[in-house]
């Protein structure tokens, strides 16, 4: 049955809006804020739990069509409900715990804001009905939980946060890539079994599933992608450790179950589609990844000294168990896969409970001592027996002692790996896997023994003796609830199995018969009891050997860690290729451009030389003109002299004429005397003639005077014209020099403008511009012409 209800949306909206309210309330009063935060968590918890009646018989859906163009889709089936209920309960307790734990921390308003935002996003991941919505909340969760991880803002916290967020972003992108490939192939992102359609669309599961596994695996701490976890856990506050172990890791596991256990399974198990056997191999790979994760996590936990780090590696190791079971579910497929699925689900629930309790205990110790390093904090048992008690109960649970909650889930998980070997066909390697499983379980017992002995037994250091060993009643209450839950599940394992784990398998394509067989298991029989016995025997042996050889204090060399041997070189390589190469490439291009400018400017220098030679020609032509003018002036002076001289000659001629005239006069006077003597009678006539001649001499003199005057005038004119010519010559010389100056000035002007423009002398030159364009235009034109030619005439 499908119910349409707003409840799933409400479950996300309430903590989201509540976060804002709590943030604002924080400015009013701290108590109000804390109270509100707990109330918001409680309300959300109530909303989630109220979904129970619906999911028992069907699914709850709600769709926002077209939101973000794709549409947000919420779909809650029993599996989603189990996760959501687990998350909201964990969050509720963690919030209550945080109100005590965070009392002395800074930026509490921010803390509660992001605590509740992360809550909303985390719920969104499991309530989402398709991969698009799931991805949206997954990314939001990555970012909002970042603020929680770096809460202390110490350099160490920032570094841990960096690794967390960059791995988170990378994982999100791997997820997105998988989503794209899936969506492009099948056209839907719904979380339903659809292996047939995927194979029909030609999608290779070997390509897509690893993408999803990277995306979710980073979140769930799958080896070797777990490296962010120990750091983030060590630096984050304890309530955050509790919820990230109880919820955020599980969000990764949820995605893994949905993808490997659901989307990539056939909708109709009766007809096995062609190519489906590849899923079996993927299942096998996941089993081995799970084994690797659990053994590696446990081994690393043994070597740690910081209680939080031990718990962090323990979480890695426990997630390995869950991963292994998911692998078994895919490996065994329809017929026997139910046991793998149930093991994973059961352990997810149990781990959420006891790991949260453990982190809270360690956090409570931290509140007292402000330190959780095993080499410094000892002997807490005598001072705070309550914490030791809760720790021991959780220890019982995680070690798989009958009576603790972990026993039942470990029993099912052990069955799963045994079944995988038994029914898995020719894969005998799984026999080895089972041995590793036992080994990892024994190691779990060992490192918790180390943690318990280190933290609670032994003698307390002196400086710790005077501390205040009060544990807040709120913390006590929360821890009591957790212990009660652990014991209840431990004593009645079938209740959880039948009421929660097995119904969650609805909607998966597993044979109902497999679930039925599980339902009737009696856990307290010899078959299941022999495994813990073996584990404890092995663990006791191992502890003695390790303690004797002092391996607990052994510091692994750096090259052994995945981080140093793989991730750091990888990131360095990435940076080198990406950034250094990119930057070098970019600057090379830049240099090429500059170089071309330089070459152009080199060429322009020649043009400058040419230009200056033209300038010189102008300058020298100016000089020539001046010289010419001087010559002309000289010539003019010569002409002037000539004229002056010619004036003198004319005067001389005139004088000559006068003399000649006087001579003639004398001659006539003399001839007159003779004539007077000769002819007195003609004296009168002679006198008349004499007068006439005298008169004519006067006229001649007048003519001569006139000629002289004319000569002077001509002389003046010539002098004046000479002066004019000189003036003209001066003017042209002036013009010439002013032209010269103008050229120089304009040259200087343009030079200084471009000098400013180009900044420095070496690279740039004004002429680049013109010449570049010219060159380009020429080249382009030439090219164009060639093209024209070939297209037209060929």
């Amino acid at each position, binding site marked *: 049955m499908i119910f349409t209800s707003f409840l799933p949306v409400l479950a996300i909206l309430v903590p989201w809006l509540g976060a804002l309210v709590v943030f604002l309330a924080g400015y009013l009063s701290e108590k109000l804020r804390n109270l509100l935060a707990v109330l918001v968590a409680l309300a959300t918890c109530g909303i989630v739990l109220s979904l129970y009646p619906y999911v028992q018989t069907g699914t709850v859906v709600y769709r926002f069509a077209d939101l973000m163009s794709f549409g947000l889709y919420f779909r809650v089936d029993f599996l989603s409900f189990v996760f959501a209920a687990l998350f909201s309960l964990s969050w509720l307790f963690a919030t209550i715990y945080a109100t005590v734990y965070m009392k002395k921390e800074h930026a509490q308003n921010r803390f509660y804001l992001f605590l509740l935002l992360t809550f909303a996003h985390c719920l969104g991941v499991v309530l989402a009905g398709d991969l698009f919505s799931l991805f949206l909340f997954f990314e939001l969760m990555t970012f909002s939980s970042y603020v929680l991880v770096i809460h202390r803002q110490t350099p160490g916290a920032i570094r841990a946060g*960096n690794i967390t967020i960059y791995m988170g972003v990378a994982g999100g992108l791997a997820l997105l890539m998988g989503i794209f490939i899936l969506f492009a192939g099948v056209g839907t992102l719904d979380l339903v079994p659809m292996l047939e359609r995927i194979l029909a669309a030609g999608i290779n599961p070997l390509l897509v599933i690893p993408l999803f596994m990277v995306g979710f695996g980073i979140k769930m701490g799958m080896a070797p992608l777990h490296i962010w976890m120990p750091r983030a856990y060590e630096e984050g506050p304890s309530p955050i450790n509790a919820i990230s172990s109880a919820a955020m890791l599980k969000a990764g596991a949820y995605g893994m179950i949905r993808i490997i256990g659901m989307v990539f399974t056939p909708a109709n198990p009766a007809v096995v589609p062609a190519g489906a056997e590849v899923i079996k191999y993927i299942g096998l790979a996941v089993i081995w990844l799970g084994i690797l994760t659990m053994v590696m996590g446990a081994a690393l936990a043994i070597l740690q000294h910081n209680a939080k780090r031990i718990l962090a590696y323990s979480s890695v190791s426990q997630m390995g168990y869950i991963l292994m079971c998911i692998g078994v579910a895919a490996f065994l497929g329809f017929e026997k896969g139910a046991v793998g699925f149930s093991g994973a689900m059961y352990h997810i629930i149990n781990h959420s409970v006891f790991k949260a309790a453990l982190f809270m205990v360690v956090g409570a110790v931290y509140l007292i001592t402000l330190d959780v390093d095993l080499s410094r904090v000892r002997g807490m048992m005598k001072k705070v027996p309550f914490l030791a008690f809760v720790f021991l109960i959780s220890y019982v649970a995680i070690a798989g002692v009958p009576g603790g909650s972990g026993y039942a889930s470990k029993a099912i998980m052990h069955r799963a790996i045994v079944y995988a070997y038994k029914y898995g066909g020719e894969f005998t390697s799984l026999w080895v896997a089972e041995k590793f499983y036992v080994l990892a379980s024994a190691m779990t017992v060992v490192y918790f023994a180390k943690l318990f002995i280190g933290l609670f037994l032994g003698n307390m250091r002196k400086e710790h003796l005077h501390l205040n060993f009060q544990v807040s009643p709120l913390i006590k209450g929360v821890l009591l609830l957790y212990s009660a839950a652990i014991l209840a599940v431990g004593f009645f394992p079938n209740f959880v199995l039948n009421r929660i784990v097995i119904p969650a398998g609805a909607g998966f394509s597993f044979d109902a018969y497999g679930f039925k067989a599980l339902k009737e298991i009696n856990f307290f029989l010899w078959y299941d009891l022999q495994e813990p016995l073996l584990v404890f025997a092995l663990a006791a042996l191992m502890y003695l050997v390790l303690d004797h050889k002092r391996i607990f204090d052994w510091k692994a060399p750096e090259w052994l860690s995945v981080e140093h041997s793989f991730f750091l070189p990888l990131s360095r390589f990435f940076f080198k290729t990406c950034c250094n190469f990119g930057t070098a490439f970019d600057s090379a291009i830049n240099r090429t451009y500059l170089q071309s400018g330089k070459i152009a400017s080199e060429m322009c220098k020649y043009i400058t030389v040419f230009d200056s030679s033209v300038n010189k020609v102008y300058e020298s032509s100016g000089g020539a003109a001046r010289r010419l003018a001087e010559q002309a002036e000289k010539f003019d002076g010569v002409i002037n002299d000539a004229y002056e001289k010619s004036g003198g000659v004319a005067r001389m001629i005139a004088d000559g004429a006068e003399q000649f005239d006087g001579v003639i006069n004398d001659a006539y006077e003399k001839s007159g005397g003779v004539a007077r003597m000769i002819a007195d009678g003609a004296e009168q006539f002679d006198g008349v003639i004499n007068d006439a001649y005298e008169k004519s001499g006067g006229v001649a003199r007048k003519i001569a005077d006139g000629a002289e005057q004319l000569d002077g005038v001509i002389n003046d004119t010539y002098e004046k014209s000479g002066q004019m010519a000189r003036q003209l010559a001066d003017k042209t010389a002036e013009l010439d020099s002013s032209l010269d100056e103008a050229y120089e000035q304009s040259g200087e002007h343009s030079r200084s403008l471009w000098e400013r423009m180009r900044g420095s002398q070496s690279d*740039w030159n004004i002429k680049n511009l013109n010449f570049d364009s010219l060159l380009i235009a020429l080249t382009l034109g030439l090219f164009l012409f060639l093209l024209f030619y070939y297209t037209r005439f060929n």
Partner: protein
Amino acid sequence: MPQLDSFLPVWIVMFPMVMTVVIFYVEQRSEKMRNALAVATSVVTFLSVLALYPGVMAGKIIEFELFQILPNLAISFRVDILSFSLALLSSFIWMLVAIYSIDYMCKEHGCNRYYPVLIITLASCMGIFMAGDLFTLFVFFELMSLISYVLVVHEETIEALRAGYKYLIMTIIGGLALFFGIIITFELGGSVSLSNPVPLISEPSNLAFFAFISFLIGFGMKAGMFPLHVWLPDAHPVAPSPASALLSGIMLKTGAYGLLRVIFHVYGIEFMQETGWTVILAVVAVITILLGSAVAITQENLKRRLAYSSVGQMGYILLGISILNERALMGNIFHIFSHAFMKSTLFLAAGAIILKTGKKNIKDLGGIGRQMPFTMFAFTLAALSMIGIPPFNGFLSKWTLSLGAMDAGVPFYVLILLISSLLNGLYYLPIIISAFFGEEHGEGHQHQSIKINEAPYKMLIPIAILAISCLLFGLLPSNLPFDLSRVAAEYLLRGGF
């Protein structure tokens, strides 16, 4: 009797031009009047563009010929859905930037030069988007490119002048290439009008290929396409922040717009699919994406990092153009919107930081989030959107673009987009982290004494509007940019009619 809205395109282009002159006169007398006029002009322009909405959405194409210079060569205007989308986006962001400038520029010199140039660049930008033929487009393209030189060198420092010089040379190269392309188109098709019912060039030839390369150089230069992007990381950071916002947010897009017009109107989609010339564009786009994103990581100057980020983001848009199917085209046009909003927010926020603290380098930005929480919050929104985190608009465009690439059967492009997203994360997240959670450098550790010291509200409001748009346009089911992108993509694939 032509309808009133035929004149609107002319009005939209001419009004800011006329106002430029008015502002030029007014500013000699009153600075307040100048600022008010600049804002008023951009507001009126925006509203005028908005007035085109009913007609354009009804599928009408408004055409108007102003005058003919030569036969077949005219100054003409043409508004279709694509023009309208980009004009609306541009005038909107211009309006916000004009408001932002009032307080930002008050401490700068040369405001009397800045405002008229700002407004005339608006006019030429509108002219580009509303051009009815390639010749008109070219005229306004050159006008915008050359005038924005003044914006680039506004500070008149040595770096600014050098960057401006580089910009100028590259612009001229681009303009020349564009001109060649247009001439060849005219030669082959006999017209350069964008309203031809069939594409102008219908047969592949060497000359047509040469024209394509010329267009690619001309428009790609403006769009910051590799290897013609070298001017961009120099020019954008040196300009005053509001101008950088416009340069990165809007003016880069004119190149992308030109390429869209060339591919769909000059050549036509069948032609492009047959010849496969867009592969060139795709290859260059991929290199542009990776190069821009990778180099951004190594940049120390905030604005320079943003500029390289622009190079990478323009690569997305060019890649979207080269894929040639509906979803990719839609994602591409939507990314034009997204990037305009995101990058303007980032540059304006960077400007607010520079104005209040004078800090330009990323390593000095430790703790700035406590001092300017509002600005840095807006910055964070835009940066997350840049990385492609849902539910921001950057994610939506990347999502649509990637689905387009998957439709075309090239998951390789999706991989490139995702790698680039990771790189975006690598260069944006450290800024945010150190701003909010980092230690302040120098001046001792004074956690408590940090006072909130925000920019004036006239700067904060535009930043806020843009940042909220980043969220809303990603989240809301049917928002205007997304609808416009969808309709425009359909329209282009129909052949532009």
